[in-house]
């Protein structure tokens, strides 16, 4: 049975096609302002990648900030539920899931049976999400993907006082004026953001394995700051930005499995 999970995030719409325990295809499209179009074009691309037709998909479940825009989905689930399912699918020993996306951050604690025990989230403030690094990269005039590698080359700890992304941008400009190196500034930015995610994660309780998902997991500088703050190694699955969509596909599988086998 093939199912699809769609995660409409603030920046990208991601689709995962799942056939039993095998991922058939993964595709993403920039969300822009047309969330429904982004979601359907990512789905079309994923179907093409898998070489299957829409009729072969037994169920579609949407999640993410724009989930309600995906009118062609059979069902919606919360991002917390999708995160938990996706992380457990890839890392069965997961007890803590940290998801850091473009405009949201979440920390979820699971019990031994994979049930969500507690969670905390930030969707109000850019300082605890990928947008923060993005704004700072702009101020530093470096590519977003450079922020991680750059910060690993830092030789000096520079404190970052501003907690707000808007204020931090002015602070970065001041640091540039003060001839602070880009490497040191990049590290200050990543550490500042990591410390916010660390406090959020501590609120739900940290238990191994800690799985880090979401697009920001690609930022090695942030990961280093997070691991130092949590005082442990985190597990990052391959394709961390697709884990939430994968979780939605798992939910679609559960639903279609219970619902009836006459589908497809």
């Amino acid at each position, binding site marked *: 049975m093939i199912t699809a999970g769609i995660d409409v995030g*603030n920046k990208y719409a991601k689709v995962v096609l799942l056939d039993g325990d095998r991922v058939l295809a993964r595709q993403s499209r920039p969300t822009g*302002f047309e969330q429904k179009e982004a979601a359907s074009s990512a789905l079309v691309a994923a179907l093409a990648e898998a070489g299957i037709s829409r009729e072969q998909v037994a169920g579609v479940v949407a999640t993410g900030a724009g989930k309600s825009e995906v009118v062609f989905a059979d069902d919606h689930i919360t991002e917390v539920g999708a995160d938990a399912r996706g992380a457990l699918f890839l890392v069965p020993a997961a007890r803590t899931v940290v998801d850091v996306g473009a*405009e949201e951050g979440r920390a979820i604690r699971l019990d031994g049976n994979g049930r969500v025990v507690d969670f905390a989230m930030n969707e*109000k*403030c*850019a*300082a605890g999400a990928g*947008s*923060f690094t993005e*704004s700072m990269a702009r101020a530093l005039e470096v590519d977003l993907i450079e922020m991680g590698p750059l910060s690993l080359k830092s030789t000096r700890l520079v404190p970052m006082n501003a*907690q*707000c*992304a*808007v*204020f931090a941008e*002015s602070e970065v*400009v*001041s640091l540039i*004026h*003060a001839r602070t190196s880009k490497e040191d500034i990049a590290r200050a930015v990543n550490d500042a953001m990591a410390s916010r995610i660390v406090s959020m994660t501590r609120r739900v309780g940290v238990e191994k394995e800690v799985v880090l998902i979401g697009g920001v997991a690609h930022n090695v500088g942030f990961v280093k700051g997070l691991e130092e703050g949590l005082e442990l190694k985190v597990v990052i699955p391959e394709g961390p930005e697709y884990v939430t969509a994968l979780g939605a596909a798992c939910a679609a599988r559960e639903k279609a499995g219970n619902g009836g086998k006459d589908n497809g």
Partner: protein
Amino acid sequence: MAEAEQKKEFWRWKEYNWHNPDLDWRVGKIVSGGVDVGSVSSQAVVMVDGELYAFASMRTGSDSPSSAENAFNWAVEDTGMTLGDIHYIVGTGYGRVNVPFAHKAITEIACHARGANFIYGPGVRTVLDMGGQDCKAIHCDEKGKVTSFLMNDKCAAGTGRGMEVFADLLGVSIEDVGELSLQVDEEPEPVSSTCVVFAKTEATGLLRAGWSRERVLAAYCSAMAHRVVTLLERIGVEPEFAITGGIAKNVGVVRRIEKELGITAAQTSYDSQIAGALGAALFGRALAQKGK
């Protein structure tokens, strides 16, 4: 969005200076000065025997000491006065410890309350100071002495910096934002995102959905008003109520704060943005009188 090469700086507000040509500072007994080095703007005020003589308001540069000095020099431009002619100078604001020529540094909370007391009169009990990177709600007594306060300096929502971001996004000069935001037939729902970064994205979406600039500005001004009203309500608003700082000049935010509170803000012919520096100069005068 295309990044325009020679983008106009819509956020850039006018810098200004003024002095009273009818007053001869040389005959004054006590010439006192106040410099308010804020995170976004710096103001300098000179008082002669307790009367406002000169002031200037400029953008704060990356270097606090020179920002303070520039503001001062501009305030006393064409008056023949130099820094050395001032008996007592008090520094205040975010960069107050970086005013090398100041005799003393006093917090901006104390200075704003004192300045508001001078500008709006002794009846003022609640002062809302809306600065470039912070927002303060202050209670004071009839002498302008602070009795309690609350502040937000962690988040750009509800600050001048947030408004600058919006002026830039919509391509509207920051001085025009307030008036434009009032040119709507019907008050729209406030922008729902608190964070300025997210509010920017939200506003871009509203523009794409066909909203006029005026309507988007109305939605943002009302979100900002709501944000500061929340801060004010935590401390309680006791009349008279006065607003100081740059945003006090934004009629779109001020009207909406008044509407939400159901109270009218005190009026003045003074420049509300110099309240902090003015308060500092008043402290300077008092300290000079006490025997320098």
